[in-house]
């Protein structure tokens, strides 16, 4: 079912390339003759298909609000479109699914209408990382979807599961790793900081960042493949060609369920948790509907439904969920996750990118 998750990055590559207009031009896929409606931007491809099929019809049934879903490109093209449209008083979508970095960038221009926590019943059950706040405490966005990147291994090459990210640094693993190729999607600086420097706070200063780069450089001889395209690594992991690396937890679980000799491990330092928020454009006048939508999406039953049908990690505390232990383990873990330092990717993205490229290419 979440097999298509494989295409997360492919899709980003394709859509980001220049179909910036696709979001606006995309035809509404569900539009019924209800009085109330809301336009919701969802990452095009896998997420939009799953939401259209499993989530939005249920929402309309429950609330009477029609959802017009709009395919948005991932990456920053959608943020730029929302920004420009808002200047003209237009909202190509009322609510949008927005990456954490783009949420922060939108905050800098007050693009997001602050949300009212009182209108979200389960607000207090949300995990803290799923509430994006303006510096003054107003709520800018609430968690929409989340997923984990974990330490994955081929079970034939590694009969014992590694228990720490430090395995990436082990000289015994020379030329055996597959890692994501970009600073902003591999989050390896955060992994380095959490594993060896006491936590991601160590990246607060440039000195700390340089130290992390230095430590990360020691991984290089172990890396066989720096991948942008998931299919490339997944295939090599299954065959044992590249027996260890970082990969998506849910997709690896599905591959294992299909009988492939692979496993996903949450290291003791935690899996990397990446996510997107629901944000409301300031040009939208559907403030009421947007709150109804976010309230609906943040219910334990709906989070459970999403975990089962879409493969996302729940945004709520485990205690309130109706997921069985097995269902929960398929998408998440209670080990404290490594949460990427999204703030760095807004303020220092070019510098980090340059250092990173020099590190792995040089």
């Amino acid at each position, binding site marked *: 079912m979440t097999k298509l998750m494989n295409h997360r990055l492919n899709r*980003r*590559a394709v859509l*980001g*390339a220049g179909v910036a207009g696709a979001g606006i031009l995309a035809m509404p896929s569900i539009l019924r003759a209800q009085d109330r409606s809301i336009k919701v931007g969802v990452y095009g491809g896998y997420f939009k298909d799953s939401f259209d099929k499993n989530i939005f019809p249920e929402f309309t049934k429950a609330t009477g609000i029609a959802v017009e879903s709009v395919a948005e490109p991932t*990456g*920053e*093209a959608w*943020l*730029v479109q929302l*920004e420009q449209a808002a200047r003209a008083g237009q909202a190509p979508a009322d609510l949008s699914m927005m990456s954490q970095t783009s949420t922060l*960038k939108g905050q*800098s*221009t007050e693009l997001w209408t602050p949300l009212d926590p009182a209108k979200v019943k389960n607000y207090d059950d949300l995990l803290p990382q799923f509430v994006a706040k303006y510096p003054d405490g107003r709520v800018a966005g609430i968690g929409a979807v989340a997923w984990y990147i974990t330490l994955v291994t081929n079970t034939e090459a590694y009969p014992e599961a590694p228990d720490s990210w430090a395995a990436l640094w082990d000289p015994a693993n020379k030329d055996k790793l597959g890692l994501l*190729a*970009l600073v*902003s*999607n591999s989050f390896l600086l955060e992994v380095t900081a959490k594993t060896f420097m006491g936590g991601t706070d160590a990246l607060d200063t440039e000195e700390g960042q340089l130290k992390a780069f230095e430590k990360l450089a020691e991984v290089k001889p172990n890396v*066989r*493949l*720096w991948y*942008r*395209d998931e299919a*490339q690594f997944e295939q*090599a992991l299954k*065959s*044992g*060609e590249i027996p260890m690396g970082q990969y998506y937890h849910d997709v690896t679980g599905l591959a294992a369920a299909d009988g492939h000799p692979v496993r996903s491990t949450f290291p003791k330092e935690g899996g990397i948790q990446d996510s997107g928020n629901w944000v409301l454009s300031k040009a939208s006048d559907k403030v009421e509907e947007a709150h109804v939508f976010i309230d609906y999406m943040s219910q334990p039953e709906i989070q459970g439904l999403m975990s089962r049908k879409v493969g996302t990690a729940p945004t709520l505390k485990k205690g309130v969920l109706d997921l069985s232990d097995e269902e929960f383990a398929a998408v998440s873990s209670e080990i404290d996750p490594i949460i990427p330092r999204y703030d760095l990717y*807004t*303020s*220092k*993205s*070019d510098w980090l*990118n*340059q250092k990173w*490229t*020099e590190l*792995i*290419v*040089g």
Partner: protein
Amino acid sequence: MRREPPRAIGDYAPLFFPAVMLVVFFVVPFSTMIAVSFFKRDQAGFYTPDFVTANYERFLSAFFGGVLGFSLMLAIMVAAVCVLVAFPFTYLLTQSSRRVQTIWLVVLLSVLSLSEVIIGFAWSTLFSRTAGITNLLVAAGLMAEPQALLPGFGAVLTGMVYQALPYTVLVLYPALVRLDPTLMEAARTLGASPPRAFFNVIVPALRNTIVATLIMVFVFALGSYLLPQILGRPQHWTLSVLITDQAIYQSNMPFAAAMAVFLVLISLALVGLTLLVGGRREASA
């Protein structure tokens, strides 16, 4: 055919269509790229129209110089290997029967229908330890245990030569087919061995074709960005790979545009230099 200089505007009419195509599909996009390369990058947003040279300044570093140098070297090697392999092959092809020629050309054309993605993944399987060609060598008793032949420079070069070879043959084929067979016969009558006649008569007679083919394959190989990623290590990534990273993953259009403009200028300069050197030699000969 009667030729006279065009007098009225109407006489230029046949040129309108190609001119419009050239403007729409080359001049406009390329100008846009040049313009964007001077725009100001905004890390927290996208870019704003401006006139800054920061994007070019960032490119002018030892690091990017190294990547550019590698990209050019790789493209030149691909061009050289392609022509070295394709020229004798095409010559032998033109000497064979019509039926054999047709079959070969159909095979080459069908290779062209493969996308870069398919070629990349096919070679990565062929070069892999678990399913690759070394398993055949092990089965034949020539090797002790299967080995991975990728990632590495050899794998990148092989993939790119494989991809460009059909083009090379198809560009060389018309010129070789039209080559006057009496040239070879005359050389043989005068006592040259077949290899000697080939190198001393056929190759010089087609020098311009060979240079044009080299340039075409060079330009073709310079734009490759998928095969170096699939078959190579990061140090084998071409400038095109880094341009893609900037444009798609970093949303840094101005910097990507500046790198692309630079790449185009350098390759134009190299092509110009080749033609200049070729022309001078012709004049002195």
